[in-house]
């Protein structure tokens, strides 16, 4: 059984890597075939929660990922409606994870895809990400817990899936309701049917394999378990090969697509993502998959990411090709300190 699990994990990583490069080939921004943080940010823009005109589009990939996980969970009889494990804390952590991701310009998944495109700034991101996870692991070993979840109604568990599908259908029948970028990354998109299809497939596969970027590094440190890391490496290898074949591999620090060179802030941005995600029990991708499978705490986390994205653009926190902003640096600082306090309180409080 464990050998089959490992093969599935390699397969799902390979699928992610290949599909990500395919989506870029068909129109998604460079090294951004799939990016959970960027795409949730685009959705926040499409819903006019922020007014950054270049990043507004209701990305079908996100809808597909959640729906794919939902279908797979129901089909496998693993759909499990549950929630109630410190939802507001999770919401706040979701906001901070997004602030960290938009400092670096990418979620852990895009970090791997940037590495696969030859962007060396992502190596710095990976170092920060690892440091953040190590900090989270320290607290997990000391007993950090956001407490138990409880059973919820099936309807509650599927609410986020219903809302996302509803919004998506609305965007097809009444496209003018939603903002849509005419220039910039938000205007660059693969055809919606392809984007939705890829989302559905990898959402289903990611549910089956439990692929998680944070879990990969965490489990190696905690249990010397390389299972999840295999998926991480598989994405990297396959996406690198696909980029080489596609002519989209450019090794270097400068002129990388949707990226900047600043060691400190690439490091600290991803450190915040790693730390927050380790406390949440999974990276933004994993939160989408868990939400599809009925976990309303993960649904709350996604709403936190959505609100976080709106905050980032409304208050000028998000970085750009020019680099980080002063407001962004302050916000990442506040995020790191707040996450540390959340970790301390949930580790050392009296039972």
């Amino acid at each position: 059984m464990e050998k089959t699990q490992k093969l599935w994990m390699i397969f799902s990583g390979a699928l992610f890597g290949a599909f990500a490069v395919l989506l870029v080939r068909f129109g998604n921004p460079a090294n951004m075939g799939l990016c959970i943080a960027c795409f949730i940010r685009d959705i926040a823009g499409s819903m006019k929660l922020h007014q950054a005109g270049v990043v507004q589009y209701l990305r079908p990939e996100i809808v597909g990922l959640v729906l794919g996980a939902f279908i797979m969970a129901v089909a496998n009889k693993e759909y499990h409606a549950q929630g109630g494990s410190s939802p507001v804390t999770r919401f706040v952590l979701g906001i901070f994870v997004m602030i960290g991701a938009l400092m670096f310009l990418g979620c852990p998944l895009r970090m791997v895809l940037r590495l696969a495109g030859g962007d060396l700034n992502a190596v710095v991101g990976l170092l920060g990400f690892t440091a953040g996870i190590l900090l989270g692991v320290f607290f997990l070993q000391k007993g950090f817990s956001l407490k138990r979840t409880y059973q919820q109604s099936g309807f509650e568990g599927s609410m986020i899936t219903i809302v996302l599908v509803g919004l998506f259908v609305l965007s097809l029948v009444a496209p003018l309701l939603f903002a849509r970028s005419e220039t910039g990354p938000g205007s660059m998109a693969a055809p919606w049917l392809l984007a939705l299809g890829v989302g559905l497939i990898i959402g289903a596969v990611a549910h089956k394999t439990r692929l998680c970027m944070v879990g990969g590094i965490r489990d190696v440190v905690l249990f010397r378990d390389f299972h999840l890391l295999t998926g991480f490496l598989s994405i990297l290898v396959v996406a690198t090969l696909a980029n080489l074949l596609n002519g989209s591999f450019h090794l270097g620090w400068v002129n990388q697509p949707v990226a900047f060179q600043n060691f400190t802030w690439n490091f600290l941005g991803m450190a915040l993502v790693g730390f927050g995600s380790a406390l949440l029990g999974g990276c933004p991708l994993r939160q989408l998959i868990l939400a599809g499978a009925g976990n309303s705490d993960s649904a709350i986390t996604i709403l936190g990411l959505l609100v976080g994205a709106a905050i980032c653009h409304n208050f000028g926190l998000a970085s750009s090709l020019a680099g980080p902003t002063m407001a962004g640096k302050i916000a990442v600082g506040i995020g790191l300190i707040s996450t540390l306090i959340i970790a301390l309180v949930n580790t050392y409080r009296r039972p």
Partner: protein
Amino acid sequence: MKTIDARGLSCPEPVLVTKKAIQQELPVTILVDQQVAVENIVRFAHKEGLYDTVKIMDNYFSILISRQ
């Protein structure tokens, strides 16, 4: 024999409590409510050279971990 209730705990806590429990005594029973936790605990037990028996209960799983 000790029984540890890890139902409702989210990843990676079920494996962490298992790790702590097997350091104290064996055999031990862990209760979890998700398939993913079962897979993780079983994988962990095998890596530690231990054996497992998974029982499917009403709406949760009971995993017995022992030396044989």
